[in-house]
């Protein structure tokens, strides 16, 4: 098992290197001053040009960089093992630019003080996002110079447009939900928002890989479904863990009557009133805290307990979505075995 993992890691590292080279060629189009900021964004945590911290992930530090384009590439290679790498990598780096652009917009809209926002400021972050979205189009349109049929290029662009609109709608619903009371939202709405945001992006990542390799509609739909289920699971996993870790700090503060500065983390979801699933579930059974966490009383204790229940339920639903994704992947694998590296990357 360990040997298989090591083999997957070395295979993935080689693919990462190839994608980085392709990405650098795409970035060469940019003005040097814009280039510097775009590279900074693509060096962010988890991005293709990032330098993973070996202390965080000692087993496989390479795996934390550029997972999205790697997935697109490996799915394309699953569908068509001898696919032209210039063709597949052009689509994969378009995915990297797309995901990075939307992440930057999401951070700016949420007012998160992420490292890049602190370094270059929100106006430049927004401009970098615009540049990345333009590079997405450029990378896909470059396929026409590689002898790819214009019908396929158009289908790829249409797929990206569709995913963009779904992701933007999901983000918009999320922003509007901030103005609503947590008690007024339903579990279904929270999952729909997660599906719109993370689900549609991961769906795109997987679908583009299948589509660019010439998969038929059935296989494209199967990979799309795996992606969407994993995207929702990913979002719920983040929501439950982010709140769990925040509560670890906040519980200590409440019990010791200290005030904690929650802005230190950079992510401000709870402070902004983000209606994530655990928060919505907690509001069904207890009254949310008002204004400050820093007081000891029975209502606060009850609400903390309700939040803990919401975290566990959310994590359970996250596991449910992963189980569903695993079952869909098994249906694909029934047709042809999936490479260990792709299994490894999907975490399934």
């Amino acid at each position: 098992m360990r040997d298989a993992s090591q083999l997957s890691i070395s295979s993935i590292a080689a693919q990462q290197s190839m994608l980085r080279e392709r990405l650098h060629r795409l970035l060469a189009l940019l003005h040097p001053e814009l280039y510097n900021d775009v590279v900074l964004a693509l060096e962010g945590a988890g991005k293709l040009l990032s330098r993973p911290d070996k202390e965080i992930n000692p087993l496989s530090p390479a795996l934390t960089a550029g997972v999205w384009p790697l997935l697109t590439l490996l799915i394309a290679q699953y569908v068509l093992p001898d696919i032209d790498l210039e063709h597949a990598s052009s689509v994969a780096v378009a995915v990297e630019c797309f995901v990075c652009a939307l992440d930057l917009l999401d951070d700016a809209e949420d007012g998160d003080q992420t490292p890049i926002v602190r370094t270059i400021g929100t106006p430049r972050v927004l401009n970098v996002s615009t540049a990345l979205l333009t590079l997405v189009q450029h990378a896909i349109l470059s396929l026409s110079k590689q002898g790819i049929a214009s019908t396929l290029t158009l289908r790829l662009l249409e797929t990206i447009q569709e995913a963009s609109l779904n992701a933007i709608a999901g983000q918009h619903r999320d922003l509007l939900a901030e103005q609503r009371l947590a008690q007024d939202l339903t579990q279904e709405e929270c999952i729909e928002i997660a599906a719109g945001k993370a689900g549609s992006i991961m769906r795109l990542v997987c679908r583009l890989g299948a589509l660019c390799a010439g998969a038929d509609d059935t296989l494209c739909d199967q990979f799309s479904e795996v992606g969407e289920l994993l995207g929702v699971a990913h979002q719920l996993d983040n929501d439950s863990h982010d709140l769990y870790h925040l509560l670890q700090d906040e519980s200590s503060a409440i019990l010791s009557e200290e005030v904690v500065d929650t802005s230190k983390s950079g992510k401000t979801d709870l402070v902004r009133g983000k209606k994530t699933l655990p928060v919505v579930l907690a509001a069904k059974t207890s009254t949310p805290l008002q204004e400050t966490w820093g007081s000891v009383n029975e209502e606060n204790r009850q609400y903390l307990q309700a939040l803990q229940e919401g975290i566990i339920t959310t994590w359970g639903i996250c596991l449910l979505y992963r189980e569903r994704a695993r079952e869909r992947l098994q249906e694909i694998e029934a047709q042809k075995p999936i490479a260990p590296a792709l299994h490894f990357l999907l975490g399934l």
Partner: protein
Amino acid sequence: MEELQIQEFVHRVSTDEELRKELATSPESVIMREGFSPRVARIITRLVPHLAMEKPMEVSLGFWST
């Protein structure tokens, strides 16, 4: 609906001390009695150690999480 099954079971466990005790001593029999589907039973089994929030959450599932 499996989502609702998970939600209702977690709520019952967190509000019913007797059920918590039973789950701590004999989780398999509780899960069997509830009649969960194999998929939900696998998930509940994984959640059991965390239901009392006494054991730290497992690390985030996706290594692609950042």
